[in-house]
């Protein structure tokens, strides 16, 4: 779809939460294509542990909204086999930390099948999963693992930061013939935004969005940190610093061009992503920027992320390590 067509479709909008936007995307795709079905732990009767699929079981029935056993390796493998044989499963992995249990099927089967078979296997599977700290869920239910998936060849990864992108990316993921992981930060499910109502609205994988324009510093922010960076940018504008905030939306493929173009303009870059700092998403974005725009940089690039700890339980500990808008502000202040 052209950017213009996308904009036209965006003209009619409705305000809803990220949770409702994902649910609307699922509902529309279930209605549009009968080869699409949902499967996962408690996605049906229960409505999803974080209520994303609530109501869909009643609308579409047990065949299309399938409750699985607590068996991540089993259902991830089944989804892979099903995708290769003519259907389009949409899997909910309740918490991204549970990828550990199912990683064999993800990395050795789902990601490699098309390639190993010389292109003779389709893999139209979508995996939705939740990430992020902030609700005292402790180390095994708060991880931000999208770097693993974005790093691993053969998988695509998206991570919405707004309600509109939650809908558009989820729909694009389901329509894609590639395996796509949708990383939903659990702290923004209640965040509201204007969402295009057109059923053909999708966001192409690999297109970033400039959420706020500015001349002084580029902030590439993901998921929860998109909203927090926008708030920070507004408050900094009062001090005369105009930040440009970009939500990459898609982590792999990554829209390098939009980011680089912005850095050429501002000369300064902050990368804000909740994943652990070492060897990660931040590093990848920074590497690409220095490859393309090294001589446009006027200041050292700054990273905002989780220091290399797991997510602790107790609130003061969790707040200590969780990156937020204040961390983005401090990073901007270090370089402007």
């Amino acid at each position, binding site marked *: 779809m052209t950017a213009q067509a996308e904009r036209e479709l965006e003209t009619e909008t409705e305000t809803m939460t990220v949770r409702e936007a994902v649910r609307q995307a699922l509902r529309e795709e279930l209605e549009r294509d009968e*080869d699409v*079905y949902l499967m996962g732990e408690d996605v049906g009767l229960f409505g999803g542990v974080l209520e994303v699929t609530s109501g869909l079981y009643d609308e579409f029935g047990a*065949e299309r909204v399938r409750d*699985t*056993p607590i*068996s991540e*390796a*089993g*259902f*991830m*493998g*089944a*989804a*892979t*086999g*099903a*995708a*290769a*044989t*003519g*259907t389009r*499963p949409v899997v909910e992995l309740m918490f991204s930390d549970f990828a550990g249990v199912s990683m*064999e*099927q993800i990395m*050795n*089967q789902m990601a490699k*099948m*098309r*390639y*190993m*078979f*010389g*292109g*003779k*296997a*389709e*893999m139209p599977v979508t995996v939705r999963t939740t990430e992020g700290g902030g609700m005292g869920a402790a180390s095994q239910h708060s991880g931000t693992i999208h770097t693993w998936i974005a790093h691993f*060849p*053969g998988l*695509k990864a998206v991570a919405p930061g707004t309600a509109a992108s939650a809908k558009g990316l989820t729909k694009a993921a389901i329509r*894609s*013939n*590639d395996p796509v992981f949708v990383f939903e930060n659990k702290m923004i499910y209640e965040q509201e935004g204007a969402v295009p109502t057109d059923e053909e609205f999708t966001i192409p*994988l*690999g297109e970033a969005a400039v959420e706020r324009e500015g001349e002084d510093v580029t902030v590439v922010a993901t998921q929860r940190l998109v909203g927090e960076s926008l708030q920070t940018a507004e408050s900094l504008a009062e001090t005369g610093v105009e930040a440009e905030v970009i939500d990459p939306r898609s982590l*792999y*493929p*990554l829209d*390098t061009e939009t980011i680089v173009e912005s850095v050429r303009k501002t000369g300064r870059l902050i990368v804000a992503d909740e994943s652990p700092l070492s060897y990660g998403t931040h590093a990848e974005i920074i590497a690409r920027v220095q490859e393309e725009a090294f001589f446009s940089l006027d200041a050292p690039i700054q990273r905002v992320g989780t220091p290399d700890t797991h997510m602790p339980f107790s609130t003061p500990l969790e707040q200590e390590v969780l990156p937020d808008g204040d961390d983005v502000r401090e990073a901007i202040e270090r370089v402007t």
Partner: protein
Amino acid sequence: MLTIRAFDTEAGDRFADGEIPGFVHLYIGEEAVGVGTCAALEDDDYIASTHRGHGHCIAKGLDPKYMMAELYGRAEGYCNGKGGSMHIADVDAGMLGANGIVGAGPPMATGAALSIDYQDRDQVAVGFLGDGAVAQGQVHEAINLAATWDLPAIFVVENNHYGEGTPVEKQHNVDNLSDTAQAHDIPGLTVDGMDITAVAEAVGEARARARAGDGPTLVEAETYRYRGHYEGDEEPYRDDDEIERWQDRDAIDSFKRRLIDRGELTAEEFDDLEREVEAEIEAAVEFAQNADPPAPHEAYDDMFAETPPEIERFATAARTTTDGGERIEESRSSSEPRSDGGRSGGERR
């Protein structure tokens, strides 16, 4: 069975000669299991195989010529040279791939059975696994899911008595691996895997059961591999007497004798058949030896349905490399068409 034995004997020899790179796991001795199973299936049924997959491929109707080309890493192989021995696949023919991960086939079969069930198609999916894989958690997850959802799946355990180099009794607590079916409340039976008709009968019943909507069956076939776990295995874990005892019960010999006794085959006809198969495999080797290697830029194909710029830039660079790139392209074009539908053993659904 003769084709499989000839193919794998040749593959072993060519591996020893250094013509075939990588790892090779041969199916010699176990032929009755793959052939008996596939004999009980319809052309468009699915199978998910193991690392020891050549026999399953041939039994499912794949062409030895393109299989051998794949072993040689040629562009005309089933996977265009990207898979090799451990990943030969032809999804259109219902062959969901040999698999380098022990125990990864059953979840794949459960998934294929899910597609079948979801779209109400008249097919089944078979997941092959070895005795070693019965200890893998994902195998039981796959069986549990198929059993819970009454999916049309069949799990065929090829018990060749060794998980790599460790005897089966040192890896499992049950007497018969088919006993594990009890945990999933599905039928589990152990059959003589050296008897092709016993295997075909058991899988045929399992197929009928699956198609009737009664869910999966686990069939354990007791068999034996005559060669090592992989080619080059020095086999310190077993002795020649044991191998000979199993060879006395060889599946091909016994089936041949039975057919001759019944008057359905003459010794001459068998010899003709053997010669025919040998010629076919010889031709397959010649085809593979003379086939073109893939062009380097093909390393960047087939990662995704939609290739992202991250990969495209390397593909573009490799395509425009003058050093050899054009030459390979030229020689490749002489062998077109490469993706001929005739190599598929089944109808595309």
